[in-house]
């Protein structure tokens, strides 16, 4: 029983990883083709300079192989990627891999903080609501979560910036650190500077994900509450708090785990609009800049990272399901 369960988990992981590789390959192909057949290339838009002649542009294109047939470019790109070479970023004038290496820690910090805050807060709110359904607390919190759930992310980001950076100048407007002073700060001051810059974008992102978590989690808690085993737990003489947190919540985590699986890619790709509004130099910001400048290698690499983490996120969620629900184990 145990053994069979474990073996099938390994089998699931292997077959899902193979699927992930296929998905990533397909997505890579689509993006590669789309971005190349879209009008313009790195040398039309980004270098829109009257001193640059068509002849110079043609020479540059030849240098980077952009004058070759699309199929040939594609095969060459794939063989480079397979060897871990993601190419040269035209807009940043550095290897793509270096650009992503610098951006990734920033995104991990922002998205990681926001996901932890959002999920912990969302679950906590849902438990408070489900403990007294229909009460004034429940309705107030429900209206609040609906408000943030319905709010477009870039709009909320702009409003947060307007209120907490402009009208009430509590937080810096943008960036990950103070552009001038950070270099000269002592370790404590530098940490404080990072946290101050992190606060607004992280809270914005946490509000957005927390609102969704709270809504789904509350609904699922209320679905589980009337179950018989909850009555058993009460009959044992457990406190209401223990009944809720240990018995009800543990049986109501599946939708939240799905949400978590859907959110995991944000850790690696960044919340594009939030990073953009707060000029947070993370993956989302970098990829968006790449799009604006037709930086083919950068955009394609960004999309590969995104596709890989989306598929891995859903695999992660499936593995978490089986941790959360013993009945799924061994299937």
């Amino acid at each position: 029983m145990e053994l069979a369960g474990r073996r099938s988990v390994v089998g699931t992981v292997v077959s899902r990883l193979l699927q992930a590789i296929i998905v990533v390959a397909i997505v890579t192909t689509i993006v590669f083709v789309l971005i190349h057949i879209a009008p313009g290339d790195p040398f039309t838009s980004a270098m829109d300079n009257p001193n640059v002649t068509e002849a110079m542009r043609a020479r540059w294109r030849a240098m980077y192989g952009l004058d070759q047939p699309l199929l040939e470019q594609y095969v060459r790109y794939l063989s480079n990627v397979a060897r871990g070479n993601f190419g040269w970023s035209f807009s940043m004038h550095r290897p793509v891999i270096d650009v992503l290496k610098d951006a990734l820690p920033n995104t991990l910090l922002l998205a990681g903080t926001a996901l932890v805050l959002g999920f912990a807060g969302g679950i906590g709110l849902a438990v408070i609501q489900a403990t007294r359904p229909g009460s004034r607390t429940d309705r107030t919190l429900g209206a609040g979560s609906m408000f943030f759930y319905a709010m477009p992310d870039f709009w909320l980001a702009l409003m947060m910036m307007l209120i907490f950076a402009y009208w009430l100048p509590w937080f810096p407007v943008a960036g990950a650190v103070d552009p001038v002073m950070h270099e000269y700060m002592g370790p404590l001051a530098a940490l404080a500077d990072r946290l101050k810059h992190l606060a607004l974008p992280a809270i914005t992102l946490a509000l957005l994900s927390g609102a969704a978590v709270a809504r789904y989690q509350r609904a699922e808690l209320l679905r589980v509450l009337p179950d018989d085993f909850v009555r058993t737990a009460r009959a044992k003489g457990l406190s209401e708090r223990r009944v809720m947190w240990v018995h009800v919540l543990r049986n109501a985590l599946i939708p939240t785990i799905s949400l978590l699986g859907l959110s995991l890619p944000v850790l690696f790709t960044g919340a594009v609009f939030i990073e953009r509004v707060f000029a947070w130099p993370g993956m989302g910001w970098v990829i968006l800049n790449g799009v604006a400048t037709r930086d083919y290698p950068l955009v394609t690499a960004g999309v590969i990272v995104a596709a890989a983490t989306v598929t891995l996120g859903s695999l992660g969620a499936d593995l978490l399901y089986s941790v959360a629900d013993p009945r799924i184990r061994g299937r």
Partner: protein
Amino acid sequence: MTSARTNPALLQVTRLRKDFPVRQGLQHSLFGRNAAAIRAVNDVSFDIARGETLGVVGESGCGKTTMGRAILRLIEPTSGSVVFDGIDVATLHGAALRSMRRKMQVVFQDPFSSLNPRMTVGAAVREGMLIHHLAEGRAADHRVKTLFEEVGLNPDYASRYPHEFSGGQRQRIGVARALSVEPEMIVCDEPVSALDVSVQAQVINLMQDLQRDRGLTYLFIAHDLSVVRHIADRVAVMYLGRIVETASADDLYSNPTMPYTQALLSAVPRPEPGRQTARIVLQGEPPSPANPPPGCVFYSRCQHPLKDDDCTRVVPPLEEKTPAHFAACIKQPSQLP
């Protein structure tokens, strides 16, 4: 049995009532009519002596589960009092209520939904001990194993999850769980009606053995009389939220007073050949508990020869008709000396 009656009552239920509000249409709530209610348990009184088993029987929907839950305070009674071991359960709150729950346990009707699917059955049995500080660590593990053996399960099964067990095994786990906190009384809500007949007998025998070994008191709910006959000292018959007859099991089986009890009994197959009475088939459905009729609740289906209009006017009180045999029928003369 009779000796049990002379003990002081462990549980005393007086005029217990439970109404469920009925969800009504928009126009009702808009025009502020009084909310209607389902009267699931209506004016129920009885007591159980220490060590005794009171069986409660009645058709599906007559309020047995609701009564059991109201006694345990798993739902709030609308009115009435429940006195357990001299303490009024209805007034307890918080920690006092939780420690009372240690003494009054429950085995639920549905073995498939009453165990937490995310918890090993061992952890489920263990939890109550920990909460009530009855045992910890190694000692608790040991007691879980002993309990599993006591209810006839392999102690190694403690690390499994509920879905790995059959209905009968789960009900044994439910019993072990109830016993884990060393209760004095157990409310058994149709503990065997979800099980195969062969398994039913095993579980009932187990419960009888446990009662004998531990001096337990049972409130044993069932919907047919044959199950209750094995285990109950006294039987209460419920109909539409009311107790309509109560007597010692032997007395009730040999001399059923109420037409309803007679009908229920006629449906029970008798082991002795030739003793089978003609089957009385009840006509129609019981009335809706949302709109109970005035007077006797059984009137619409009653086949008593003396039944008349008086029955629709007077709510028949539960009266002692022969010694220790109570019935709620105004047409049944009292034969007390």
